[in-house]
């Protein structure tokens, strides 16, 4: 069961303003960077007014001239499907059986080994995996059992580094996870720049500081941690996977995030099975439309003709709050960077869950 969505262009329209972060340092563009950008352009890419730098989120993209608009366009031929990527020792490359053309393969390998995996990504991921491995046993056990974090914690460390690197950089384009050169370097901000993926990926705008993008509306603080190991304040919270009983009917809540169109509305996918009802996700709180979460649950449960659905919703919220409060309790005696990140994530998730006020018609 997936816990979090990949970055998704269909759900990234939250943006209200460009992210402005003061205080960053730029990386002097070396010869190799210039050559990579030239090769990128030669294969159809656009990278105007963009350079590498370090901001408060670590490595990211910045405008060369903050007073001018930036423009990044990555054509589809430069997107590398995750299943075509392989690791050879410390290096990253494209599998032999891949259908990607030779020039694009060569570009990807050079880019990934100089700028991405080989340009700091491997070290960043190694440090993260070490931090997860150094967590106290009771915290590790709780993360694995209650939060689906076993992929960060269990198995060969090198395999985990590689898997988490790919997971954290994948973008879902028409149902296929791909790694998108340059774009994968952008960091997330809930109010970051919008982007589109029609005929290639495109992001434009102006930024006085780091160029941030939103990874999608279907990310809550927990999913941001699960996927990227960061604490990010988000305007929305979804339920953790769980099975509940609504009246006499078993309902399972997932975090697979499939969507269903119902007239003008987009709702979680609802599947009726022999074992009851399955929801692809359940929204618990939404700061922009706080009356939506409860009402959406009530609407989804309407066909079940169950009385007192409000109480079932309260019970789901309570079960979720209990999980994150239990995590906070487990973290309480400990210190460390990752502990702080997790604590903040739990606070942000609890905060987003409280944005459920009354109910509105949907």
């Amino acid at each position, binding site marked *: 069961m997936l816990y979090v969505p990949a970055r998704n262009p269909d759900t990234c329209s939250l943006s209200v303003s460009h992210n402005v972060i003061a205080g960053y340092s730029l990386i002097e563009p070396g010869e190799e960077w210039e050559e990579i950008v030239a090769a990128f352009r030669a294969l159809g890419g656009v990278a105007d007014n963009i350079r590498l730098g370090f901001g408060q989120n670590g490595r990211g993209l910045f405008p060369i001239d903050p007073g001018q608009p930036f423009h990044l366009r990555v054509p589809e031929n430069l997107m590398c499907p995750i299943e075509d990527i392989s690791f050879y020792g410390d290096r990253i490359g494209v599998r032999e059986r891949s259908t990607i053309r030779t020039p694009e393969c060569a570009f990807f390998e050079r880019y990934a080994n100089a700028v991405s995996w080989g340009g700091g990504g491997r070290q960043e991921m190694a440090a993260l995996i070490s931090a997860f491995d150094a967590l106290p046993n009771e915290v590790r056990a709780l993360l694995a059992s209650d939060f689906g974090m076993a992929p960060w914690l269990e198995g060969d460390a090198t395999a985990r580094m590689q898997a988490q690197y790919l997971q954290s950089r994948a973008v879902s384009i028409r149902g296929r996870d791909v790694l998108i050169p340059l774009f994968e370097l952008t960091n997330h901000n809930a109010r970051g720049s919008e982007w589109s993926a029609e005929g290639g990926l495109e992001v434009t705008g102006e930024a006085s500081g780091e160029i941030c993008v939103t990874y999608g509306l279907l990310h809550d603080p927990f999913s941001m941690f699960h996927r990227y190991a960061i604490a990010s304040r988000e305007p929305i919270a979804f339920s953790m996977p769980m099975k509940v009983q609504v009246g006499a009917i078993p309902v399972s809540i997932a975090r697979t995030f499939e969507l269903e169109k119902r007239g003008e509305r987009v709702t979680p996918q609802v599947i009726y099975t022999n074992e009851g009802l399955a929801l692809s996700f359940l929204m618990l709180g939404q700061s922009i439309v*706080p*009356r939506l979460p409860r009402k959406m649950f009530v609407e989804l449960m309407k066909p079940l003709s169950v009385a*007192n659905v*409000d*109480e079932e919703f*309260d*019970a789901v*919220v*309570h079960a979720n*709050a*209990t999980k994150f*409060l239990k995590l*906070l*309790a487990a973290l*309480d005696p400990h*210190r460390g960077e990752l502990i*702080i990140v997790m*604590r*903040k994530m739990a*606070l942000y998730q*609890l*905060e987003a869950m*409280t*944005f*459920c*006020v*009354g*109910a509105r018609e949907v």
Partner: protein
Amino acid sequence: MQTQWSSEEMLEALRALGGTAENIRVDESKGALFACDPERPVVLRVPENLLFPLEGFEFANGFLRLKDPEHGLRDARDFLGHYEIVVGRPLFARAEATVAAFDSLETAVKDVLAGDFGLRTSFEGDPAWRIERQFIERRAIRRGGGWVVAPVLELAEPDARGLAIDMGNGLRIAGAAPDGVRAIYPFQDPLAIFQRFGSAAPQPVAFSLPMTFWSGGIEISIARDLHLGDRRGEVIVPQLNVVARDRLVLSHLMLGHSAYPRLARGIFRARMSEAGLSDADAQFDRIVLENTARLLGLLDMLEENKDQATDSLRTMARHQLEAASWSIGTRKI
């Protein structure tokens, strides 16, 4: 000059005056109670003649003493005098430590606690006066319409899973106490326990922080007078006082209760309906939201600090959030 009793002499005197102390041991240095044999239940009863109304006390030289030296029976007065010599010091030291812990908090944290949590009196004013108040408040037990000091029993630490205090004939606790004798102090949430005892303890109930909101053109203030309520059958609801034509005050507001998860919203609905106000559910959600935001803000603020005072504060905030999360559905009050 009174001689200092041993704790066993103190318990003997309690028994001689009609009290019961079975399997009870007093740790004089901590001012705490334990079972002599942790495998067996304890019984402790303080008779009516040894329950002293709080308003009859004054504070002098680190001890509580009766304002009226002729109050009650002589034996009871003598008992109290000896008792204060045994437990007054450790309890006073704890009050001093609590005030020192409050004072050691960063200014920004104090400002938040004073402004958002109604704890201004814990930080402002002469420390000696605050220690005195802390010393007295910690010892008071609510009984009927007033407060009493119950010697020996007051040493039971607060714990929601502790022994219930039977208030029928004197004050009595009885039951298993393998890890120390602890008692349930009803109608106290984790914040109230923190304010009174300076420690963090989980509680089944959470009450709102003080705040004011508007509904239908009416200003409604929520206070934290947890002892002020009206009885509705089995349930205590907060007092709803009209202080002006367009201004109401709720003496307190329950946000959640783990044993009665339908109660909190039900009480608020009932009170809002009586006040002729609509949209009570959304209003209740907003109050919960505001409470949660303040508690999470406090937790976030304490992130960088690691000392005993902030540890207790952080644990209190977590317990308060836990108790507040117990609002599931509603019921008719």
